Structure formats: C-alpha cells, structure tokens
C-alpha cells in the first residue's frame, strides 16, 4: 500500500465511523421521542407511561367477511356482544357478533326494512342505537328522519323535522347522532341546528331543545357589534351556540355530548367545553376536579401535519364512570376518571395497528374498546392489559369502599409506572381512609395534591394537638405565666429594698 492508499483508507474508515455514529445517534433520538401511551404530570409535562391498552386487531372488510369495502362509515354502537356499524356510504347497517375476543362475525347486513312507508331503504344512515326494550333507532340522515324499527326490522314509527317557530322552514332536517333514554325518548342532533339536542317524546312528538352550549363571545366583539351598522353586523360572525358532534348515554342515563369545533382560546379560557355531561334539564354536570381542563391534549402546536386543539368527536363511558374521548385530529384516545382526571392517552396518527387516520366513533364492551376509522375503513379493537386492568381495579375498589385493597393495587401500578401521579394520589387516598394521615400527607406532597393533602393535614393536626395538649399547655404556661411571676417577685423585692422600714 502506498501512502496515498493508507490515507484514503483512513478517510473511508473515519467516514464510516462518523456515519455509524449518526445512525446510532438517530436511533437513540427515536427512542427518546416518547411512548405510545402517555400522561401529564402536575406541571403539564408529558410523562411516558406503559401501555394500558393492547391492540387485539384491526379489521377491514375482508376480515369482517364483507363483499364491499366500508364507505365513509360514521357510526359504531355496541350492545351486549353485538356491534352495529353504520356503513353510511353503502346505505346499510352492519351487525356483527363478537364470538371471541379477537373475532367479529357478520350476523346480517341491514339494507331495508318492512313496513308501510314510502322509502324502505336508508340514505346515508349516520347513527344507530338500541333502546332498553330492543327497538332499533336509526339516524336516516339524507331521508331526513329518525327511524324506529323492531328487531325484526318492522317499521314502527319515524321522528321527523321538529315543528317549531324558531326553525327556518327551508332548513333541511339531517339528523346525525342520537341517543334514546329508558322511557323511549329520543335526543338527537342534526346538521345546522344549534339550539341543543332535539328532544322527542316516545310517541314521536317534538318536545323542545335541551342543553345548548353557552354562547361564547368576548367583550371587544360585543363593543364592535354595537358600533357596527346593520350591513356590517350581518357580515360579522354571529354569537351562536356551537353544534354538538356526538352523543353518548351512560349507564346512569346521563347524556355525554361532545363538540369538536371549539376554538383553542375558548377551550383554554374554559368558556367552551369539549365534553359536557347533561342531566335531564340540560345542565352540564361533568365533574372537573383534574389539574387540567378536559379538552384532550394540552399542547396544541402544529406537528405531523396536525395543529389546533384535540377534536373530541366521540366518547364512551364505562360502567365505573371512566370515559374515553376520541380525538379525530391527532387520532388519540383520552381516558378520564369520574373526577375528570386524565388517566392516560394513547393512539396517534399513522398506519400501524393502534394508530388511526380519521377515527370517528368509539364504543365499548366491558373494558374493550372498538374504534371506527372512517378513512382507513376499519375497526380497531383494544383490550386493557395487566397495567390497564390494574388501574381500573384500583378505581373500582376505591369506589366500592375497599380502601386498603385499592391502596395495594395503586402501589402495584406505581411499581410499574413511577411517573404516574394518580398512583401516588391513589395510595395517599387509601392511607387517608385508613387514618394514616402522616403517610398520606407524604404521598400527596410528592404529587402536589393540595386538596387531599389539606384533608390529611387537618386530621393530622387535630390528632397532634390532642396528643400534645399537655406540652402545649405547659409551654403556654411557661411563656405567659412565668414572666408574670418573675415580674411580681421583682416588684416585691423592689418594694422591700425601698421600703421605709429598712431605711435608717
């Protein structure tokens, strides 16, 4: 080898080493990018978390035994072990039976129904619901009606455009989502109707609007509007309530309503709510005791082609009041507990299993989640793994009053995920119930939970004072009484010293 060859060899070698370094470096940064599942800590920092849910499978038309691809599917409803999917673009409703944890078997494809009506087929049906008596309710969107069928597909009745003076006569009635309560009353939302949920009595009579979102406007807009002329005013945005995007009726009969189109500043100032839980009067009774408002991701910056706030497009509520919100924007699922604290977030945009392109609907059987992706034309099934089940167990045990057991379970959760604030708070709450206040305070302090800390401190303080009452009494005595006695003694001494009797 000549000198030049050696030089070239060294050059080549160093280049190789350098590129290897870059490769290793980049793979390391890929590792540091964050986990599939995450949570937020007290400061709003993203904390990586073990996966709480595993993907059982992603099912497209072939896996589901269909002849035709799903076309713009919009709705998914679970009932018992049955799954109903609104295959909107194909004007049909598909019924599947879940025969095994990873198996969906096609039962039937509902494309028409029997009965004495003009149109016996569907046109872009967007939602499906079964009431407690087994009747089917279908949002037959482009036929402008909500259908009620029995389980043998016989027509019972239909709910039509509400007759109301405040509704424009030209407005086309396009119901998109609905829920049915225990008494057969139907609540539905329709395109372009923003006065709240349209409520029908069981006999099909329209009975009013409930639960409109409060109108959001700021003071400057108001001032502008007062100053503007009529023509200018018409061009300005109207202060109107926002339409809901989806509904879910939980096991207690409360309706969860979500709205995906709120503005970032309205969500951050909490003048608008992405998720509302409506009672019969239409008031929002969702509990918001978490460190952060319930609007999905805290960080709304752009990244990966998506920006703006999470667009909560559907929600499902488990029997233990944990609810899972589906974000259409970044394809994520947000699980909140009944106090409104974020349990975990998972999912994302992508083509891998467990990621979505445009998820639109979510429902559950037990704790298993079914997510419908309208762009990917697929259904994804998730099931909680050991870690996820443990969290549910801990919550359920606490709600059932088994505080010691709940504390032990939270401790196990903490062993798996030391960055999980709720585990610390869970252990603390269990200790608080066991009247081990001092230890509880330690756990709450670690995670800055001042409400629970104060509860523990109050009890601990009381206990401490009761235990040390004697010492406290003696101290007070020492501080107040002893100087008084000394002063008195000094005075007496002074009087004796200066007394006339002792003067000669």
């Amino acid at each position: 080898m000549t000198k030049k060859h050696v030089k070239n060899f060294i050059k080549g070698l160093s280049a190789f080493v350098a590129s290897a370094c870059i490769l290793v470096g980049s793979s390391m940064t890929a590792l540091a990018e964050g986990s599939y599942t995450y949570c937020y800590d007290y400061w709003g920092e993203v904390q990586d978390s073990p996966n709480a849910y595993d993907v059982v499978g992603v099912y497209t038309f072939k896996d589901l035994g269909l002849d035709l691809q799903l076309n713009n599917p919009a709705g998914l409803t679970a009932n018992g072990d049955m799954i109903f999917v609104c295959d909107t673009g194909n004007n049909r409703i598909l019924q599947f039976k879940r025969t095994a944890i990873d198996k969906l078997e096609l039962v039937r494809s509902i494309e028409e129904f029997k009965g004495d009506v003009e149109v016996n087929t569907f046109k872009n049906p967007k939602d499906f619901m079964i009431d407690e008596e087994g009747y089917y309710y279908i949002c037959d969107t482009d036929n402008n009606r909500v259908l009620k069928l029995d389980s043998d597909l016989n027509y019972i009745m239909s709910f039509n455009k509400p007759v109301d003076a405040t509704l424009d006569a030209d407005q086309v009635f396009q119901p998109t989502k609905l829920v049915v309560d225990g008494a057969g009353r139907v609540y539905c939302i329709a395109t372009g109707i923003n006065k709240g949920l349209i409520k029908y009595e069981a006999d099909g009579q329209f009975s009013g609007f409930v639960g409109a979102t409060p109108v959001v406007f700021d003071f400057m807009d108001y001032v502008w509007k007062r100053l503007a002329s009529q023509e200018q005013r018409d061009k300005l945005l109207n202060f109107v309530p926002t339409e809901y995007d989806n509904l879910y009726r939980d096991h207690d009969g409360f309706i969860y309503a979500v709205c995906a189109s709120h503005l970032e500043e309205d969500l951050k100032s909490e003048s608008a709510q992405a998720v509302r839980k409506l009672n019969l009067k239409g008031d929002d009774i969702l509990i918001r005791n978490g460190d952060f408002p319930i609007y999905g991701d805290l960080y709304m910056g752009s990244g990966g082609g998506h920006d703006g706030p999470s667009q909560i497009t559907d929600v499902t509520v488990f029997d233990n009041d944990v609810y899972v919100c589906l974000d259409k924007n970044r394809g994520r699922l947000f699980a909140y507990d009944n106090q409104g604290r974020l349990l975990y977030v998972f999912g994302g945009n992508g083509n891998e299993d467990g990621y979505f392109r445009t998820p639109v609907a979510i429902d559950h059987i037990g704790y298993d989640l079914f997510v419908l992706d309208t762009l990917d034309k697929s259904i994804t099934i998730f099931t909680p793994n050991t870690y996820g089940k443990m969290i549910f167990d801990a919550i359920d045990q606490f709600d059932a009053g088994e505080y010691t057991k709940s504390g032990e379970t939270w401790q196990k959760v903490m062993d798996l995920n030391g960055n999980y604030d709720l585990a610390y708070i869970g252990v603390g709450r269990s200790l608080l119930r066991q009247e081990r206040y001092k230890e509880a305070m330690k756990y709450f302090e670690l995670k800055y939970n001042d409400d629970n800390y104060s509860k523990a401190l109050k009890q601990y303080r009381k206990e401490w004072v009761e235990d040390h009452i004697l010492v406290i009494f003696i101290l007070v005595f020492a501080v107040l009484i002893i100087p008084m006695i000394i002063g008195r003694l000094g005075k007496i001494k002074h009087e004796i010293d200066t007394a006339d009797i002792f003067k000669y």
Partner: protein
Amino acid sequence: MLTSARIEKLQRFWKSFKFAFYCATHPLDGYWDLTHERRGTYAAANFILFLTVFTKLIKLQFTSFVIEPIDWENTNIFLHIASILFPLAIWVVANWGLTTLFDGKGKFGQIYMATCYCMLPYPMIQIPLIFLSNVVTSEEKEFYSVLSALSLVWVLFWIILAMGQIHEFSVGKNFFFTIASLFGMLVIVFILLLFFSMISQGVAYFISLGKEAMFRMS
C-alpha cells in the same frame, strides 16, 4: 482574637442592628436618627439585606407546597436573588439621581442604608410565616396571604417614609419624588435593555466580520 477594638466594632454593629427594630416601629423618628444622628451602619444594612435574600431563599425550600408549589426543575436561585438585589440597585440609583438634583439631603450610601433598614419587616414576618405555612390547609390559605401581603406593604410604605426623612422632604414632595423615582427605574431598565441589545448586536457584527476574514484567509 477578640481585641477590644473588635469588640467595640461588634457592639456598634449590634447596636445599629437593634436600631432597625426601633425603625420598624418608629419610622419617622428612627429614619431621621439613622443618618442625622449616625445611628445606622453599613454593616447592619448589609446584614439586613442578607437576611432578606436568605429569607427569600429558605422560603422556597420550606414553605408548604399548599401555599406555593415550586417547579424545582425550572427554578434558578440566582433569579430569586436578583429579584431583590436588582430592583434595590436601580431604586437606589434612580432615587439618588433625581433627589440629588432637587435639594435631597441624602447621600447615595445613605439611601442604600435606609432602604436596607426598611426591609427588616420582610424577614421578621416571613420567617414565622414559613412555620405557619406548614400547618395551614388550602382553605386557610387566606390567613397566610394576608400576613404575607402585610410584610410587603409594610416594607414599601416604610421605604417611602424613610426617603422623606433622609432627604428632609415634605410629604407632598416626598410623594412626588417616589413616583418620579419609580419612573426613573423604568427609564433605567429601558436603557439597560437597549444597551444590551445594542452591545450584543455590535459584538455579533464583529464576530461575523472576524469569521468572514478567517474564512477568506484560510
């Protein structure tokens, strides 16, 4: 070794430090005597300033998180120290710069000394409050906040009174010059910002010039 001169010095320091407590309860009389009767010392002033900064720092560590949750990862104690020293410095400069032009009798050092003496209520109240913070719940937070605010109001009000005595100003004139000094502080901050941004741009210019020259020559 404790020579007699040293002991005398210590005694003088102790006496002048104790005088700060007198000032805290008798501001008008106290701050007049502080300079006119030479009852204050720089040693005591520095010590009170040290106490104040020290209180600010131990507050971070020992105040209950119920009152003040602290994000330790993003805490810079130098910023906390500067949050006292920097306003103090520009206050003294601004106040001296203005009052010296308008018959203020106080010298630069005296303004500094009097301002430091005025800070005594801060450690006086805040240190017991650290203990209090650890026995209050979040519902009783208000007790803490009121006392904490009191310490600040006390300090600020006393500084205004002290300036009046040091400069031998009437109440109206004192009030006017307090406002003027605050405005002066704003001007100083503005000029400092301007200065630093200019300097950094100037430095960046010469650095890029140097880089260019080195690039051409190599």
